[in-house]
């Protein structure tokens, strides 16, 4: 009888007494995450303060502690700043383009009939689902100099889209936006749907244009949602790797299309400068960590509780 009268909390306290249950359940996760995630994070920091090259990797030579030497090297290298600026600029352009396209289409979705809406949703779903690798190969084929459809349609005989730095960034950027606008579109569309129709209707009766109701009603009401989509896009676009690596064959002509991620990778695995590459990767991680903190704050404001 007494057992029935006990509340759940009591039962749990009794059953769990003396045994560290939660830690037992967390053990498998820890067994994977500590060596394959935590330790590499620590090791990345460690590698970044050592002179670590091919001689140390395979020659068994002792590695020398160089403190912030690698950081001094990369910060003193004009190339690093160029790549950093390029990465930030490219990511910023991608974020703006993704949001503009995604938001415009989300609004469009609210004003069309069921058939166009379904068609656009399905098409977006396909682009969203396509692996980065697949998207890269198809867009490369479309923009191929000789056999590509784009050149044929535009009558550009043999024009190479992957030669000039900015043209290349344009094509790669278009591929990435194609992959990423659906997330923005679907999320914002769901958000707009949640806005009571009467609010938008009232604005319409009061003579508000589409443009006005977008900026004066939809944007303010969706602010938390937009914050999350923006930061998600920033994180996503800042660390893009596959498209750049595959479409520009490892960073473009003379590495002109390198972004931080690919630069770190090539420095480590291409030039066997593992210490330097790690330092670049650390800088990138720190930048993304700062963005992550913004993300958590945005989640918090949105009302998510831990």
């Amino acid at each position, binding site marked *: 009888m007494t057992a029935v009268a006990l509340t759940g909390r009591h039962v749990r306290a009794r059953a769990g007494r003396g045994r560290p*249950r939660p830690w037992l359940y967390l053990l498998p996760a820890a067994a*994977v995450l500590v060596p394959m995630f935590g330790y590499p994070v620590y090791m990345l920091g460690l590698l970044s303060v050592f002179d670590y090259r091919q001689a140390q990797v395979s020659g068994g030579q002792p590695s020398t502690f160089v403190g912030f030497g690698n950081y001094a090297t990369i910060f003193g290298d004009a190339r690093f700043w160029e790549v950093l600026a390029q990465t930030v600029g490219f990511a910023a352009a991608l974020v703006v383009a993704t949001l503009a396209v995604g938001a415009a289409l989300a609004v469009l979705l609210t004003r069309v009939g069921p058939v166009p809406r379904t068609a656009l949703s399905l098409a977006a779903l396909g682009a969203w689902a396509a692996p980065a690798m697949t998207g890269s190969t*198809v867009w490369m084929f479309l923009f191929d100099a000789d056999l590509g459809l784009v050149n044929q349609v535009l009558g550009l005989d043999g024009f190479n889209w992957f030669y000039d730095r900015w043209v290349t960034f344009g094509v790669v950027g278009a591929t990435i936006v194609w992959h990423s606008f659906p997330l923005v579109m679907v999320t914002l569309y769901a958000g707009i749907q949640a806005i009571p129709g009467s609010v938008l209707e009232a604005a319409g009766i009061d003579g508000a244009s589409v443009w006005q109701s977008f900026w004066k009603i939809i944007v303010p009401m969706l602010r938390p949602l937009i914050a999350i989509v923006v930061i998600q896009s920033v994180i996503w676009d800042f660390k893009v790797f596959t498209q750049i690596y595959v479409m520009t064959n490892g960073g473009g002509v003379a590495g002109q299309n390198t972004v931080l991620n690919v630069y770190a990778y090539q420095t480590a695995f291409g030039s066997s400068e593992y210490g330097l590459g790690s330092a670049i990767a650390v800088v*990138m991680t720190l930048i993304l960590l700062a963005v992550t903190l913004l993300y958590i704050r945005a989640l918090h404001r949105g009302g998510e509780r831990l």
Partner: protein
Amino acid sequence: MKRRLIPNIVALVVAFLTAFPLYWMVLSALKPAGEIQSLDVKPWTLHPTLDNFVRVLTGEGFGRYLLNSAGVALTVVVLSAGVAFLAAVAVTRFTFRFRTTVLIMFLIAQMVPVEALTIPLFFVVRDLGLLNTLASLVLVQLAFTLPFAIWMMRGFVAGVPEALEEAAMIDGAGRATVLWRILFPLVAPGLVATSVFSFITAWNDFIFARTFIISAKDNQTLPAALLVFFKPDENDWGGIMAASTLMTIPVLIFFVAVQRRLVSGLGGAVKD
């Protein structure tokens, strides 16, 4: 109705443009070699053929890569589901010291740029003697899918009323029974959704396959193996498109299957 005409047309055009690359991929995969290499490109084909598929699956060993990819992804899914389920139970059903810390760590782990960890992970995998093995990919993908999987499972576990477990325990069921016989089936739909994401992550991985599988070509997975078709002189576009199609279909199927959950999950992050 009239004022809807222009938005409708715009939406249909955008839908067409968005779907076009995928259409082009499938179409090119079905085109005979002559049409692919023709300088007069047509947006249709009157002679569809499976030649490209046959060639990539047999000649270039793509069947093998397909199996490797599927094997890695499915192993990751099964392990990730089990491990994430247990961890999610830990952080939702118990209050313990550092619980919030653990949760925040999962959240931060999701944000760590995994590409940045390629360098140290290369050495970890090498020291474990796992370079050139599929096990290395399983381990790494497992680690990268877990934080998200746990984070997502947390919501599903929390959604099951604790009273059900308590009732079972009062009836004399042990912890393990409650966990596997009662809680597990109830969160199964959530587990499926989570698994799809793990599957897609593992299936799409390019950078780790590219880095860890150096010399054992037989152990390559699809995304990295696709590079085989890029030749300095002339790319085998028919083969590349056929391989890309093979790689996209499973993801597309899974994606469509869980898209509703996906959208509500995204909305859920900010809704309440």
